[in-house]
C-alpha cells in the first residue's frame, strides 16, 4: 500500500496550526466539492482532502501520524509498523463516515480504533430503524430509452452481534425503468441496512448517472446531437440518416437550413410524460481544397456566387 502525505495533500507545512489546516481544508473543499466543482476527478480529490483533514484536525491522530516521521514520500510502499499506535487512543470523531470512503493507508493506521469507536455508538440494546443507503448506478443513454437491468454491488457497514461494524458486500439486480434521467433517484424500500433490535430496515437509494456519450449530450429528458453536414446538404436540402439512441432514422433537412440551427425531433428524446425531444444541430464542415479540381470548384463559387456573409456587420 502507498504512503499518503497528508500535509502535501492539504498544501500545508508540517508545523501548520489547526487554524491553518482548517483554512486550507475549507478552501480545497470548496474547490473540489463534488456538488459544486467542475474540476476533473473532483470527487477523488475531495475524498483525499477529507481523509487528510480527518487526520490532521484530530490532535491524537495527527500526533500518531507525525511519529511515522517526516521521511516518507507520497506513493512510497508503506506498511504500518507493529504496535505503531501504542500509547495513542483514538476516540473517533462521531461523524457518520462510511468506512469504505477512506484509503487502505488510512484504514491500516486508524481503521480499528475508528471502527470500534463507532461500534460503541450503535451497539446499544435499542430498537432502531436501519440506515438508508445511497449509491450511484451508471447507465448509458440507450438504457434510459429502453430500460435495463443492472447488477449493483454494494459495500455496506453492518453491525454484528458484538456491536462491531464489519463491511459486507451485497449484489443486487435492479431494474432501471425506461425514461429515467440524469441525477434521478430510485428508491428500493427495505434494501438498506437491517434494523437494529427488530427495527425496520432502511431503504436503498440509487442515483442515476449517465455514462458520457460520444455523440449525444443530455439535458433533462432532451437529447442533443451535433450533426456534421456539407454546405450543399443545407443549401439544397437533403435526407440524412442520423443515429439516435434508439436506432437510425432519416432526417429531412429542408432546403436553405442554416448551420447551427436546432432541428427538433419531437418526443425522440428520453421517454416519459412528457417525453423529451431530440435536437439535431447541423454543423457545416468544408471539404478541403487540397487538389486542383476542388480548388477550381471553390474558385468558381467565389466568382459566380456573389455572397457576403458579413453584410449585416456594415462596412
Amino acid at each position, binding site marked *: 500500500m502507498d504512503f499518503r502525505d497528508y500535509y502535501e495533500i492539504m498544501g500545508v507545512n508540517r508545523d501548520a496550526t489547526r487554524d491553518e489546516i482548517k483554512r486550507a481544508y475549507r478552501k480545497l473543499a470548496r474547490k473540489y466539492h463534488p456538488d*459544486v466543482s467542475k474540476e476533473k476527478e473532483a470527487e477523488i480529490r475531495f475524498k483525499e482532502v477529507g481523509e487528510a483533514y480527518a487526520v490532521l484536525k484530530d490532535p491524537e491522530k495527527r500526533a500518531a501520524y507525525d511519529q511515522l516521521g517526516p521521511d516518507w514520500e507520497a506513493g512510497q510502499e508503506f506498511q504500518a509498523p507493529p504496535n505503531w499506535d501504542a500509547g495513542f487512543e483514538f476516540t473517533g470523531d462521531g461523524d457518520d463516515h462510511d468506512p469504505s470512503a477512506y484509503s487502505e493507508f488510512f484504514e491500516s493506521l486508524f481503521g480499528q480504533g475508528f471502527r470500534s469507536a463507532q461500534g460503541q455508538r450503535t451497539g446499544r440494546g435499542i430498537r432502531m430503524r436501519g440506515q438508508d443507503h445511497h449509491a450511484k448506478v451508471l447507465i448509458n443513454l440507450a438504457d434510459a430509452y429502453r430500460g435495463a437491468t443492472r447488477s449493483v454491488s454494494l459495500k455496506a457497514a453492518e453491525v454484528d452481534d458484538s456491536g462491531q461494524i464489519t463491511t459486507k458486500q451485497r449484489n443486487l439486480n435492479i431494474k432501471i425503468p425506461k*425514461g429515467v434521467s440524469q441525477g434521478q433517484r*430510485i*428508491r428500493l424500500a427495505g434494501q438498506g441496512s437491517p434494523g437494529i433490535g427488530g427495527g425496520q430496515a432502511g*431503504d436503498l437509494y440509487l442515483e442515476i448517472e449517465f455514462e458520457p456519450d460520444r455523440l449525444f449530450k443530455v439535458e433533462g429528458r432532451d437529447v442533443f446531437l451535433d450533426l456534421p453536414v456539407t454546405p450543399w446538404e443545407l443549401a439544397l436540402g437533403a435526407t440524412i440518416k442520423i443515429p439516435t439512441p434508439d436506432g437510425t432514422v432519416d432526417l429531412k433537412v429542408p432546403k436553405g437550413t442554416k448551420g447551427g440551427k436546432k432541428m427538433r425531433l419531437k418526443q425522440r428524446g428520453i421517454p416519459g410524460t412528457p417525453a423529451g425531444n431530440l435536437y439535431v444541430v447541423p454543423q457545416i464542415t468544408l471539404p478541403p481544397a487540397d487538389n486542383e479540381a476542388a480548388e477550381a470548384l471553390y474558385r468558381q463559387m467565389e466568382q459566380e456566387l456573389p455572397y457576403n456573409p458579413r453584410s449585416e456587420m456594415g462596412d
Partner: protein
Amino acid sequence: MKTILTGQVLDDTIELTLIEITEACSLSTEQIVELVKEGVLDPIGEEPMDWRFHGTSLTKARVAMRLQKDLGLNLAGVALALDLLDEIESCVRS
C-alpha cells in the same frame, strides 16, 4: 435464482412526507423545517405534518446537507450556493 428488484423512481410525480424525506436524508425534522423556512425546499401543504415533497427535493436536501457539513456553510449560504448552482446550470444550457 436471480431476483430482479424494482424500485420507485423519485420524480416530480412522487410525493414524500416529512417523515420519509427526513429518513432518506438522515436529517432531523427540525433541519428539514429549517430548509423549508430558508426556501431551499418548497413542499405542497400548509402545516409540516401535511407537507408533501417532490421526489426531486430529496436530491436538493442531500446536497444542502453535504454543503453544510463539508464546507461549514450556514443555511443562508447553502441557499445562495444552490441558487447559484441552478443559475450556472441554466447558463450552460442556453
